[in-house]
């Protein structure tokens, strides 16, 4: 029986999934303060996630928790190109986007702890962060579910005559879901100001993209909808920022959507329940990608360009550490939600 034999692409090596040119964008002409801010945002996510992993091991965080370690440049680069009045919606791997969008380490950590002070009042947890004020439409724990929702947000923007954009973040495994195709077709047909940011970290939970995808060049899928598309180096924060900025301009000025395939890599297991390697990828492969770790390479480049000195870097680390420490303490000391909160908001309160 040959039912459903997955297609094998022997030429597909991890490197082949990287964009052809991985040359970093030039730093000349950039504002050093802005670059240091991007670095700090990435560092905040990294240290936050490390602590979240630790707190999970201690039993302070429960359920299913997906860390963003390795992908920081994608969230930070993207948010840097978006305006505060734009809209963002994510998958369940959204701690990084939430922090980069400015939700605050305290309210995100408290949500992971299931506390009343969390951004979703403790009702959502890791996969359901939400903040109306920051137009962060939330994490979505159904793979691909956020993609049509962002199409709808973009529809509303256009309907009201606004010049905002709506951006969706999702993994490469989501593009094989009907929701992706249906939503992108609509967005292209109706010419909506949407940006579809596919974070291609090569794996779904424990299955490589090429085992479940007939074509693995995700940007190429945009052809089906006659949609603009780009492949972006997701280990390069400025490359991500610039690509999202181009997509945002296209959306604001011409009211057309863009599909961005951002090639990145997750350094941790799929969730806290999974090992980092084994079964589906080797330790060597993980190590090889860590060589491009944005938290290591970006400060290196800033140093080389004279935009960051050792003292500045140490101060940044200390500052971030203090912020995380404060967030953990805040989450730990915050009250549990009251049982009376339970039935609130099932329907509109009278």
């Amino acid at each position, binding site marked *: *029986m*040959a*039912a*459903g*034999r*997955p297609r094998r692409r022997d030429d597909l090596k991890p490197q082949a999934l990287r964009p052809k040119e991985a040359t970093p964008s030039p730093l000349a002409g950039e504002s050093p303060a802005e670059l240091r801010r991007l670095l700090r945002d990435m560092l905040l996510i990294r240290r936050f996630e490390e602590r979240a992993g630790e707190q999970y091991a201690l039993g302070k965080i*429960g*359920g*299913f928790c997906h860390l963003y370690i390795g992908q920081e440049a994608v969230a930070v680069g993207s948010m840097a190109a978006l305006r505060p009045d734009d809209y963002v919606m994510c998958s369940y791997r959204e701690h990084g986007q939430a922090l980069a969008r400015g939700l605050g380490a305290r309210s995100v950590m408290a949500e992971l702890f*299931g*506390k*009343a002070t969390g951004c*979703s009042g*403790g*009702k*959502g*947890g*890791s*996969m*359901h962060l939400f903040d109306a004020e920051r137009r962060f439409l939330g994490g979505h*724990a*159904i*793979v*691909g579910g956020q993609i049509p929702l962002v199409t709808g947000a973009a529809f509303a923007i256009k309907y009201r005559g606004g010049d905002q954009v709506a951006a969706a973040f999702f993994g490469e*495994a*989501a593009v*094989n*879901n*009907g929701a992706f195709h249906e939503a992108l077709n609509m967005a292209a047909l109706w010419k909506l100001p949407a940006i579809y940011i596919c974070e291609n970290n090569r794996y*779904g*939970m*424990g*299955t490589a993209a090429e*085992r*479940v*995808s007939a074509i693995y060049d995700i940007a190429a899928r945009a052809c089906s909808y006659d949609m603009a598309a780009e492949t972006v180096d997701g280990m390069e924060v400025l490359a991500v920022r610039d690509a999202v900025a181009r997509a945002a301009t296209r959306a604001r000025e011409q009211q057309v959507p863009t599909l961005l395939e951002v090639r990145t890599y997750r350094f941790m297991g799929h969730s806290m329940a999974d090992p980092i390697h084994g*079964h*589906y990828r080797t330790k060597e492969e993980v190590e090889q990608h860590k060589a491009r770790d944005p938290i290591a390479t970006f400060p290196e480049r800033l140093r080389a360009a004279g935009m960051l000195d050792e003292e500045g870097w140490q101060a940044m680390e200390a500052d971030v550490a203090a912020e995380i420490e404060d967030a953990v303490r805040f989450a730990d000391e915050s009250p*549990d*939600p009251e*049982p009376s*909160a*339970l*039935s609130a908001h*099932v329907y509109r309160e009278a």
Partner: protein
Amino acid sequence: MAEVTYLEALRQGLREEMRRDERVFILGEDVGAYGGAFKVTEGFYEEFGEARVIDTPISEAAIVGAAAGAAHMGLRPVAEMQFIDFISCAYDMLTNYVATARYRAGLPTPIVVRGPCGGYVRGGPFHSQNPEAAFLHTPGLKIVCPATARDAKGLIKAAIRDDDPVLYFEHKFLYRRIKEALPEDGDLLTPIGKARIAREGRDLSIITYSAMVWKALEAAEILEREDGLAVEVLDLRTLVPMDDDAIVATVEKTNKVMIVHEDTRTGGVAGEIAARINERAFEWLDGPVLRVTAADVPLPYAPTLEDYVLPQTADVVAVARRLAAY
């Protein structure tokens, strides 16, 4: 006799059926090389190869649809939903199409759609659901909900051999928490449509299924110890077709019945059971048919709230005492 967990029992059942019948194949997300999100199919890829243990894209509608199409052609697919919550992505395929295929066209669709259901694991609103009531309402689908390791094995084997589509809801809280000695040889089959008396009693009956069987048994212990009550626990095992005779028999025996399920209350399975008791055994009742269920809210993540929403042993005890007082 070797002690096996609920999860291992399920795995044994799947493995035995795959060895027995080469029409049986498994498809689902990460079920192959990775061995499944909860490792139910660990080792299968190595034993049966990639032609029979198939890693699918995240495409629930197409997973169920493709399974159904292959079943029409004579194969016996077992489709895994990585979490049973995602079965709603295949709701159309199951309810509009699969459930009606035999009725409309005389087409058998011998598929099993299985996956982990249930809470108590801090999974939050999209990773803790118990969707049985939605499908209970759809004629044409069978539904099984094993509570024990023996039935985890017996029901998966029976489901695979059944000529109709079977939804197999396995409880993720039970996966590694319960163990049972099972015979190593022989065909262990649990008949679909047959309930099981998990504990004999004469004072009142708790009708339940899946993980709630264990809460009911705990409650029964407490009620015996502290109140001297002999509580009968009926484990339904199958929801469709429902074992009406077993339900009526326990009503006739104890005259007081309560129903416990983990799913939310309104429109839940308990309402249907209560109606059946009303229709078939009303004159045997000495008290109202009471329910212990989850509250009618989406399942919150916060541990304090989750514990509050979901049925706990103490809730079962309290309602049983109220019922016993009639």
